């Protein structure tokens, strides 16, 4: 059977690959959405945190022989702690100011982190091999899928779902959502709001680091790996609606699929298609697909 001159199996395999990329977008944009929702900070250093997750994993393997599975938990924790330090030292001072200041600060941090790592490790990057357990590939009939990619999709979706559940269905989540609406009132009820924002920022960047660990065996670890990806992820968040949790997950996955199809039909446009969609969405729904007008 053929669809648009493409066999069904080819189409299915491209959709599956799109889903792999989409799951990365989903985790990254989820972190951004949470941070924006509560802190009102446009976290431009998200790409750098993604890169740090990957590079910390590599460093742990290289210098301390700590394996991938440990780092899958440890790297987000380390980067999350760094995020907490950043929030306490710098970001905290900017909440009263315009969004632009937070954006500039986090952008500056990105340049700094990338520059330092580039001068240590160079630009061409570092290799990280796939963990033994997940090396090899499975023949699905219509395509051969490397086991590691299947794992990346599975673990990303699990993390997304758990995060969504905690925020939407638990009492901690309800504080968080209330804080987004009216921080002063939440504080009046005795909730330690400053602590909550600190932890939220830490968790948001930990998500980015988690995604970085997942990406480490797939793409070359280099100081610039985050900046290549982050602009697309920002577009994903804008399309989904700033601050919408489920919106950012679904949009991430959906745009991964759209991008995957573009790579088959007109590959040259694959890096632009997300932005074209962003323009269209903003024209008709300025708050994004899942966002609410404030």
């Amino acid at each position, binding site marked *: 059977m053929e669809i648009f001159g493409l066999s069904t199996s080819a189409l299915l395999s491209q959709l599956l690959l799109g889903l*792999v990329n989409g799951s990365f977008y989903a985790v990254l944009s989820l972190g951004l959405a949470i941070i924006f929702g509560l802190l009102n900070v446009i976290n431009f250093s998200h790409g750098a945190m993604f890169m740090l997750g990957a590079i910390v994993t590599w460093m742990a393997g290289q210098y301390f022989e700590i394996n991938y599975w440990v780092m899958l938990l440890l790297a987000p924790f380390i980067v999350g702690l760094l995020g907490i330090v950043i929030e306490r030292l710098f970001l905290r001072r900017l909440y009263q100011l315009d969004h632009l200041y937070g954006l500039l600060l986090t952008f500056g941090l990105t340049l700094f982190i990338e520059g330092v790592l580039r001068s240590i490790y160079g630009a061409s990057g570092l290799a990280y091999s796939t963990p033994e357990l997940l090396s090899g590939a499975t023949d699905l009939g219509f395509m051969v899928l490397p086991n590691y990619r299947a794992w990346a999709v599975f673990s990303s979706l699990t993390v997304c779902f758990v995060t969504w559940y905690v925020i939407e269905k638990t009492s901690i989540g309800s504080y968080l959502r209330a804080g987004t609406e009216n921080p002063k009132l939440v504080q009046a009820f005795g909730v330690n709001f400053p602590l909550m924002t600190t932890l939220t920022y830490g968790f948001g960047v930990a998500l980015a680091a988690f995604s970085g660990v997942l990406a480490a065996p797939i793409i070359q670890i280099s100081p610039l790996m985050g900046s290549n990806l982050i602009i697309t992820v920002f577009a994903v968040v804008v399309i989904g609606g700033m601050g919408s949790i489920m919106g950012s997950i679904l949009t991430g996955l959906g745009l991964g699929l759209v991008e995957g199809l573009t790579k088959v039909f007109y590959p040259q446009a*694959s890096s632009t298609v997300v932005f074209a969609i962003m323009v269209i969405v903003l024209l008709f729904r300025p708050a994004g697909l899942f966002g609410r007008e404030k």
Partner: protein
Amino acid sequence: MRQTLISMAAVALFAVAGNASAADQPPLKIGFITDMSGLYADIDGQGGLEAIKMAVADFGGTVLGRKIEIVSADHQNKADIAASKTREWIDQNGVNVIIGGTNSGTALATAKVAAEKKRIYINNGAGTSALTNEQCSPYTIHYTYDTIAMANGSAKGLLDKGYKNWFFLTADYAFGYALEKDASNVVLANGGKVLGDVKHPLNASDFSSYLLQAQSSKAQVLGLANAGGDTINSVKAANEFGITKTMKLAGLLVFISDVHAIGIKNAQGLLATTAWYWDQNDQTRKFAGRFMEKMKRMPGMVQAGDYSSTMTYLNAVKAAGTDDSDKVMEQLRKTKINDMFTKNGYIRKDGTMVHDMYLYEVKSPAEVKSPWDYYKLVSSLSGEKAFAIPPDSKCALLNK
């Protein structure tokens, strides 16, 4: 500012030891401009600067009784910075020769300014063959490699071994197009077939989709018409998806630093054309050993070219007895280049330094005996064949 001028301590040392007249005359200045911090920094960058310093020190630190000074700058891969820095160096600092590194855009911009000011420009890192074709100049020397030599090296070597059907994975910008065009011309001219191509955006992180398209073409060879991080990520994904089991991967522009970054496990079997490899003979090993001591990594062909071209230039100045660009160029064109970089190399009328190229295959992990022991020789190609003048060359200098 990053582009601070660096005066050289080593040179100063030699100058003190040199004769007294060196102090009376103005120094001979070499300006080195390349990507020092961006994506091509490992190919040339600080290592290239070190190679030039080594050449100046080996030469003795002085020429014609004048001290030799090196200034360097990071063009940050921006053509306008390259052009304005070159202009500043020549107009205000009296720089005598410009040595340029990676990035075709900056190379073309620098060459233009140098030609206008009648200063010799030697390029070692840029791929574009336009430097010696439509934009050739009597003052430009393209020393280490160009896209034509790369295409000839990889494509001819594989076609001779019976790999006739090609598919190209091409970076979607001028450089990728040029590389693909040069390579497919060679493939077609030698009885091969091009079954298709796919263009990917620059700095793409995911190549799996393009690779599956390549695989479904049933071609024998996947020509990688891209560079740097794109090549690295394509090779990595090709391994993951098992493409390397059915197709031969031919990098059209692969540097040893790329192989080092990919890791031997993923890079094994990759074919790469190069002008120079550190483990070719005693001379290359000696240079590589000295470089390794300073930079903690093996030199690639661009850095070896930096050393060789600096030496060649200084020898020509010495032989000509002047730093006058026209006279030095005349001397350079008469010179046969025999050093650790190449044997019987010469500079053609259009500015191309014609020298042999080599096709290497990346070893399997079992074959690797020591760090950086990555390549085994597949075939070599004479300079005339590798740097064949394109039949439609627009360089007027060729007819003089």
